[in-house]
């Protein structure tokens, strides 16, 4: 029985965001934008969706008089990512057979 791929993660930009955050403690919004080559508007929408799903934490603060948004993956996000990768591996394994 195949596990269903998590629809929250099975989207290019959201998966890219979570994959970036999985290896770091936290990252600034601008860092994620630069690494994903996404537009700020599009990224904001997807970050909000990940936040609503409880996969990431978003902290907004001021740093040197400029607004700073920091994103951090949650334990729920880590679990979802691991489950997603396992499901992917299952699909790819079948493809090989």
């Amino acid at each position: 029985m195949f596990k269903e791929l998590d629809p929250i993660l099975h989207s290019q930009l959201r998966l890219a965001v979570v994959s970036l955050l999985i290896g770091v403690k936290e990252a600034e919004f601008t860092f994620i934008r630069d690494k994903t080559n996404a537009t700020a508007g599009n990224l904001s929408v997807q970050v909000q969706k990940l936040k609503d799903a409880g996969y990431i934490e978003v902290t907004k603060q001021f740093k040197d008089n400029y607004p700073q948004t920091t994103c951090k993956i949650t334990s729920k996000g880590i679990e979802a990512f691991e489950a997603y990768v396992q499901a992917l591996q299952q699909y790819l394994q079948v493809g090989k057979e």
Partner: protein
Amino acid sequence: MADQKQLTEKESLDLITNMIQKAKGSYHETGIGSLLWGTVVTVASVVTYFQRTYDFSIGFDIWLIVLGAIIPQIIISVQEKKSNKVKKYEDDALNAVWLVFGITIFGLNIYQIIVPDITNEFIKQEGWQLTKHYLDSSKADEPISTFTPSIYSLFILIYALPTLVTGIVKKFKPMLYGALITYVLFIGSCFTISEYDFLLGGVAALICWFIPGVILRRKYLAQQKANV
């Protein structure tokens, strides 16, 4: 990157790998901290070696430059913290290791300053004293003060510790090898007179921090150039 694109399983896995690699390669130390400490400790050690070997004084305690380096280090740390857009899990642990290293070096300095005088006082209270006695009786016995023999060997040993941890955690070979060579220098320093310990300590600072600092700086500048 658009969000609407439907990914195949293979594309998803490639995207994950690509992003993890990007996150890994995103953080570069400026190398300034390593260069700073590598320079001041090497200079202080080598100057101490020459002062003791050739019996002269430069007029002030050269180790004050190490104390003075704390101020630029604080400024460097604040600036690096501001410019880093990403924080890795190991950062806090490594910062803690270097903080403990700083405290240990400070504690060892306190020990070196206080213990000989206090010991002198204790043995005076007990009514005896340390005396230098020449085995061939060519000179008369001289009373001497208590001292900590070859203590710089301990400094060399401690130099290796945070360097090795950083080298292992960051998988940064120059620091890893630098620390391993420093352990060899420590063993060597146990067999040499204290003057040579300072020379070995200078070499330790050079290979633990200065040379890795140069490598880090080059990598950082190359990364900056690539980002322009």
